[in-house]
């Protein structure tokens, strides 16, 4: 009986190995099931979803106008001190002073893409972009100023 048990065990072991090899053989002969993509070559078909959190950007319209009022809600919402809003006072044509942003400094090197600044913004002035290639040669290049030079606040945004 020992011999029978021994042979059964050996047969079971060989069968289990062959089963695994069958799986390997299947994928060896079915090239279409291989889904690996080579990264820099697949850029044309690499479409990231619109919700992908790549970096914070401030969209401007064609007149170089943005929607940021300088309320610093994003600065307060950020857990890492990534965003720094520097405000200034603009003198309006009617002589009144109005608060506006001078610079919106964004430290990409500190950002964890948690999306809290985007949902905190009351005027939807900032949004997440789908870029992901952030490597630069100098660390200083990661500190970005989000508003374009000479940009103004859009009419009607309070």
């Amino acid at each position, binding site marked *: 009986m020992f011999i029978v048990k021994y042979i059964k065990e050996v047969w079971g072991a060989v069968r289990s190995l062959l089963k695994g090899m069958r*799986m390997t053989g299947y994928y060896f002969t079915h090239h279409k099931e291989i889904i690996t993509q080579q990264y820099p070559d697949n850029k044309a078909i690499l479409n990231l979803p619109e919700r992908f*959190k790549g970096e914070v950007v401030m969209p401007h319209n064609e007149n170089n106008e943005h929607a940021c009022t300088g309320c610093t809600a994003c600065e307060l919402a950020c857990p890492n001190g990534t965003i720094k809003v520097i405000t200034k006072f603009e003198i309006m044509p009617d002589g009144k002073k109005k608060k506006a942003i001078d610079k919106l400094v964004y430290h990409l090197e500190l950002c964890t893409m948690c999306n809290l600044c985007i949902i905190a913004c009351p005027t939807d002035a900032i949004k997440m972009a789908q870029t992901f290639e952030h490597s630069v040669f100098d660390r200083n290049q990661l500190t970005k100023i989000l508003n374009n030079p000479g940009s103004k606040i859009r009419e009607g945004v309070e």
Partner: protein
Amino acid sequence: MYRQTEIIKDSSEVSPGGGDLEEGGGAEFVINVGPQHPATHGVLHLVITLNGETIKKVEPHLGFIHRSIEKMCESLTYRQFIYVTSRMDYLSSHINNHGCALCVEKGLQVEIPPRAQVIRVIMDELTRIASHELWWGAMAMDLGAFTPFFHAFRERETINDIMEETCGARLTMNYMVPGGVMADIHPNFQKRVKDFIILFKSKVDEYDELVTGNVIFRNRMKGVGFLSKEDAISYGCTGPTARGSTASCDIRKLYPYEVYDKVEFEEILETGCDSFARYMVRIRELRQSIKIIEQLIDNIPEGDFQAKTKAVLKLPKGEFYSRVETARGEFGVYIVSEGGATPYRIRFRSPGFSNLSALDHMIRGGKIGDLIAAMGTLDLVIPDIDR
């Protein structure tokens, strides 16, 4: 080579560098398993005292990836501190965030809309599947099988794509906010999850065929790393590690949160108490997670995805504790509030630390090759242990 300060000495004769290989020969050899370097995050350094090939003592060295997350959370508001917990157990970051959000909601006494509850549970289960898959691949690689790693990552990629579309990120999603979820699900979400379920059901059978039935794998797993039920409980093991030793500890069953008391699933218990039992618990849990998602994916109720909360969240004075079941075990969040906008004290109970503490007991007296097998079945995530 690092030599630990305290070495067990059986006899006075210690020959340097190995020596007598016979059992009880008195010779000891200290070997360091695992690298440690600030740049290689998430590695475990074990100092092992050997007698020949027999392990006399295993001492994990922790602290290399300590980031003082608990202290960091004390300076962040109740909305902000949730994202940090994704960096603890990064493979079940959704579930960590879920636990924190639950604790804050407990203090705020807000009711979560049913839609948000269902979305949260679906996301949790998808995360659990992704985590178990990565574990399956990595554990097979620990034992020298390289192919399962690619098989596991192929299906995990599908989950990552679903997460990317709805949450905006692949690993550290930060999708849970106090009061619900950050955004509504993507219009494609339900269709893609259904496709994934169909795909995944056939692939689990493939996993069984490739690894579970393999004779080499079975022989290396069975009877190795024995952990009795009493020991599992006394070491504080939770999750699949304890359930492989028949200790019932599924938080989803014992203390149901969200909609877990309305869905049908069974708590997986294995009686083997060895490495293979822990392996089987996880493989069977994959099927249970699919079962939960199947029940919920067609029944996402309409409504808000987020309850209305104040702009600045302030918890009343007191102590709050909530727990969730991550892929590794019980994750607890303990908040002490003084009534302000930031917590006075936060403490996380992470499953990895307790599970690791059982390793020495589990493997003492075994062979060094079995150490890797037993450690693989614990499913350790080092940032979770060190925090």
